């Protein structure tokens, strides 16, 4: 807080300057003064009181009614002063909250960003970006001893902090799955029970779980209501829907998940994503799935990582750099 006397002298000087040589410059000084006051947390009623004191000094025989009018104004300003102080306090609280969220987002990122395993036969690309600070998307790769790859992608319906909290639980549940994951359907059935038991019924989670068997070059997969991905056949040079049916996680604890499979030839691709990819909204409406296929096709000569990065950049630009939903895109391409 600055000293009252100092403040008084300063205000007095500026006010006299203005009263004697009224100009835009003296008014500008007044504006600068108000900034300085606010920086020092001086309330409006204090400024008014300075003003009254200076005026009284100049007009010691001020008309009594005139003086009462000032008192009235001062009284009316007290409420504004309170609102001003409350605003300062709320701003401080907001900054605190934001820094808490920043920390939480960092913690979450460290949960989310798992290592992407490396294989000679498979080129993997991943991108995952939250719409806000925290993400409700989750992906996960595990390489087991048999050189099998399990890949999971999950999407908590909803976004922001509640979705992120829920996502952390999925991560934990996935980590407590046994190392040997042979049956995608069984993995989803397990998770479904965990979600049904632990998550608020208003929250839904969709998930795709796949197991890539290296010796067979076959993908076994199951889906819990997850946005269907694509399968690209290099033979036919064509993109197909990677259809798998199943209820979203958490609806009913006895849900069974059917297992599907697909042979993967050299040059084939499996493309998985969260609905933040298909729900990209541009001026012309939602992005069509065909549009995503087109964006991928344009980049097929690139590495999987370059493809997902490129598609993300393009979609980000199409929606004016404002993601409306968490965005996760995964591409697996068989190399040899």
């Amino acid at each position, binding site marked *: 807080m600055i000293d009252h006397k100092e403040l008084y002298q300063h205000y007095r000087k500026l006010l006299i300057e203005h009263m004697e040589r009224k100009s835009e410059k003296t008014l500008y000084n007044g504006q600068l003064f108000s900034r300085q006051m606010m920086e020092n947390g001086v309330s409006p*009623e*204090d400024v008014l*009181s300075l003003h*009254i004191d200076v005026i009284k000094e100049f007009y010691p025989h001020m008309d009594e009614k005139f003086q009462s009018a000032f*008192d009235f104004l*001062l*009284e009316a300003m*007290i*409420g504004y*002063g*309170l*609102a*001003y*102080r*409350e*605003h300062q*306090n*709320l701003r401080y*609280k907001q900054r605190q909250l934001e820094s808490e969220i920043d920390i939480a987002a960092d913690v979450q990122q460290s949960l989310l960003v798992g290592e992407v395993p490396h294989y000679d036969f498979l080129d993997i690309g991943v991108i995952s970006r939250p719409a806000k600070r925290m993400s409700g998307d989750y992906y996960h790769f595990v390489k087991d001893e048999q050189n099998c790859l399990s890949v999971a992608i999950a999407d908590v319906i909803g976004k922001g902090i509640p979705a992120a909290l829920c996502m952390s639980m999925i991560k934990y549940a996935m980590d407590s799955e046994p190392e040997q994951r042979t049956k995608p359907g069984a993995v989803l059935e397990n998770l479904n029970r965990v979600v049904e038991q632990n998550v608020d019924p208003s929250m839904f989670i969709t998930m795709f779980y796949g197991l890539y068997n290296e010796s067979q070059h076959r993908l076994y997969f199951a889906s819990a209501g997850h946005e269907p991905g694509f399968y690209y056949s290099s033979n036919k040079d064509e993109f197909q829907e990677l259809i798998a049916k199943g209820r979203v996680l958490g609806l009913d604890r006895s849900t069974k998940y059917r297992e599907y499979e697909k042979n993967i030839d050299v040059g084939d691709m499996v493309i998985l994503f969260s609905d933040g990819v298909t729900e990209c909204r541009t001026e012309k409406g939602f992005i069509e799935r065909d549009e995503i296929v087109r964006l991928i096709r344009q980049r097929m000569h690139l590495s999987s990582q370059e493809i997902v990065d490129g598609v993300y950049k393009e979609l980000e630009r199409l929606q004016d750099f404002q993601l409306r939903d968490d965005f996760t895109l995964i591409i697996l391409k068989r190399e040899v």
Partner: protein
Amino acid sequence: MNIAPNRVEIHNEWDIVRARQSGRERAKELGFGHVDQARIATAISELARNIYLYAKHGEIIISVIDGEKRGISIIAEDNGPGIRDLRKAMEDGYTTSGGLGAGLPGVKRLMDDFDIVSEEGQGTKITAKKYLR
């Protein structure tokens, strides 16, 4: 100076004005400046209005603090319904007036010391003090 505490019973809006006036006069006698007088009067107003609105009746006791630090003490006491969640009531933006800075957090800001004791179903006692600088 008369340092006997001044009690104002609160039953209606007119009593709120009397409590304010009593507080302002006492503050003036003590040598509080114009702004502080207005602040003290506003704090009394808020406390008295709460009594009037939520407890129907109670009293405001205004007294002089004549210790090491001189100042004014305001006690607002009632046997009304009490405040269940004090933490909430003291939170900025919680008041029914929609967070214009007034209400109990406002009283706390206007004064130097603020203490509240409240028991559900028994009543509320708020003590607020302001010292001369």
